[in-house]
């Protein structure tokens, strides 16, 4: 095992990685921008180095500055967390070229999965089901309309290099498609530096279910169960749970097997997530994309499997065996729910940065909180609005929901507006509680 790790990230995920590093006796080096100097992860790291001003381009996205910190502090490995440079193959190559251990899959695997068009084609070739869609970039709005006539409406317009729901929109007809195409192209260029667009058949009443995989150092790929991420606003996840209440045992085993094939097709190493859309009525699923990194919602998998995913990432990157028996099937124990606590108003979900004057986290049986802030810290407008991930684990889904309700009521955040009232509403919503919901749930809650 390497003796030290640079964490090229911030907030709750930096703190999460520090926790496992310390437990394993690996020295944790953090970096921070001027906006983040007061956050808990900075003081909890063994060493913390200022990386630059608040703007991400001059701090957490500055690959040269990060490598310089690694050199100066003698860090032996780099963990990218999620977001920022986590799925940047160029950064992964630069880390490896600098003689450091990259905690993630090979740069080639990142490249293959980072381009959603290539990834779709590759998955189809590996026998993983994909939705009807384009197999090469769509040149312009006319070409998009022509392609949609073949695929059939509604269609989803997406940036090939995209993520986080940015630039994505569904179109019901040709006029809406032309508008969606232009918006997607502008955002794709701005946020992802590539104007390439793909179209896919849109499933309006689908569940978003993903499979956690681990590519082991010996070349095997194993699946660690699924997560249901169908509670979304603006195509971004707000709450996740495992096991999915909306899939049969048969569909689950098909999805897990397909996810393993997906990982094997790219020689995947480390933690990754195969995202799928499930049409609950027909009991079928299609590949959506693969995230080549640790997922935000990884804690629910940890709660039901008892496996520390960050520890497995460290072990695999060091070329060592994982801490559990990968030849025995990993079965979930109980049920876990994650609620993403965002700095946003709970009705329209608009961002609400500001100074935090009071912060009190809930605790109790089955409750886990991964947070990035504390009283006296400030939520700035420069980064994503995630304040904390509140997770509840129970023997059954009902117990997990009951524990989550109590925990939401006990979570005190004063200063920025938060979506905690939304989570209270969600946990009392009949459709959510029944388990029979899909990605349109929040839209229906807000129409009422």
């Amino acid at each position, binding site marked *: 095992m390497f003796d030290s790790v640079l964490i090229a990230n911030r907030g709750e995920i930096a703190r999460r990685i520090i926790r496992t590093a310390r437990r394993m006796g690996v020295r944790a080096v953090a970096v921070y921008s001027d906006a983040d100097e007061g956050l808990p992860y900075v003081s909890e790291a063994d060493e913390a180095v200022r990386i630059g001003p608040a703007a991400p381009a001059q701090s957490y996205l500055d690959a040269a500055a990060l490598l310089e910190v690694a050199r100066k502090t003698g860090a032996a490995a780099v963990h990218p967390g999620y977001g920022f440079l986590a799925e940047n193959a160029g950064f992964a190559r630069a880390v490896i070229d600098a003689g450091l251990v990259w905690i993630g899959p090979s740069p080639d695997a990142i490249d293959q999965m980072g381009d959603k068009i290539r990834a779709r084609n590759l998955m189809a070739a590996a026998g993983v089901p994909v939705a009807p869609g384009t197999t090469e970039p769509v040149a312009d709005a006319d070409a998009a309309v022509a392609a949609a006539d073949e695929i059939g409406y509604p269609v989803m317009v997406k940036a090939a290099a995209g993520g*986080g729901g940015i630039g994505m929109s569904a179109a019901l007809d040709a006029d809406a498609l032309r508008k969606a195409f232009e918006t997607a192209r502008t955002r794709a260029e701005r946020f992802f530096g590539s104007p390439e667009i793909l179209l896919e058949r849109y499933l309006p009443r689908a569940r978003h279910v993903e499979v956690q995989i681990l590519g082991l150092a010996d070349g095997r790929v194993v699946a660690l169960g699924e997560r249901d991420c169908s509670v979304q606003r*603006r195509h971004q996840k707000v709450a996740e749970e495992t096991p999915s209440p909306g899939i049969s045992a048969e569909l689950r085993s098909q999805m897990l097997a397909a996810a393993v094939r997906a990982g094997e097709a790219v020689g995947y190493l480390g933690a990754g997530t195969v995202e799928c859309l499930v049409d609950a009525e027909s009991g079928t699923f299609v590949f959506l994309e693969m995230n080549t990194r640790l997922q935000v919602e990884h804690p629910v998998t940890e709660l039901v499997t008892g496996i520390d995913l960050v520890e497995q990432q460290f072990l695999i990157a060091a070329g060592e065996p994982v801490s559990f028996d990968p030849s025995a099937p990993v079965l979930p124990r109980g049920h876990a729910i994650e609620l993403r606590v965002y*700095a946003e108003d709970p009705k329209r979900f*608009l*961002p609400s*940065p500001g100074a935090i004057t009071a912060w009190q986290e809930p605790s109790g049986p089955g409750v886990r909180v991964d947070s990035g802030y504390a009283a006296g810290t400030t939520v*700035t*407008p420069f980064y994503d*609005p995630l304040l904390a991930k509140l997770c509840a684990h129970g023997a059954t889904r009902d117990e997990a929901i009951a524990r989550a309700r109590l925990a939401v009521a006990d979570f005190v955040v004063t200063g920025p507006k938060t979506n905690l009232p939304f989570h209270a509403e969600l946990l009392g919503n009949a459709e959510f509680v029944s388990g029979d919901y899909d990605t349109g749930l929040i839209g229906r809650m807000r129409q009422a």
Partner: protein
Amino acid sequence: MAEVRAEMVANVWKVLVSEGDHVDDGDTLVILESMKMEIPILAEESGTVTKLHVAEGDVVQEDELIAEIG
């Protein structure tokens, strides 16, 4: 006379109108960006942009004046 104010701390990403422009109710005046989200700021009545208080790249505070429409 209508005042258009920022609802939250944000960066001014795009300014789509100039002083003296006529705008209709619902037109986008500026696009703010906060926490990786684009927030279009719309005219809430028709009229002329009499004063513009922000430029692209500015940071606005909550409740800060963005534009006046008369």
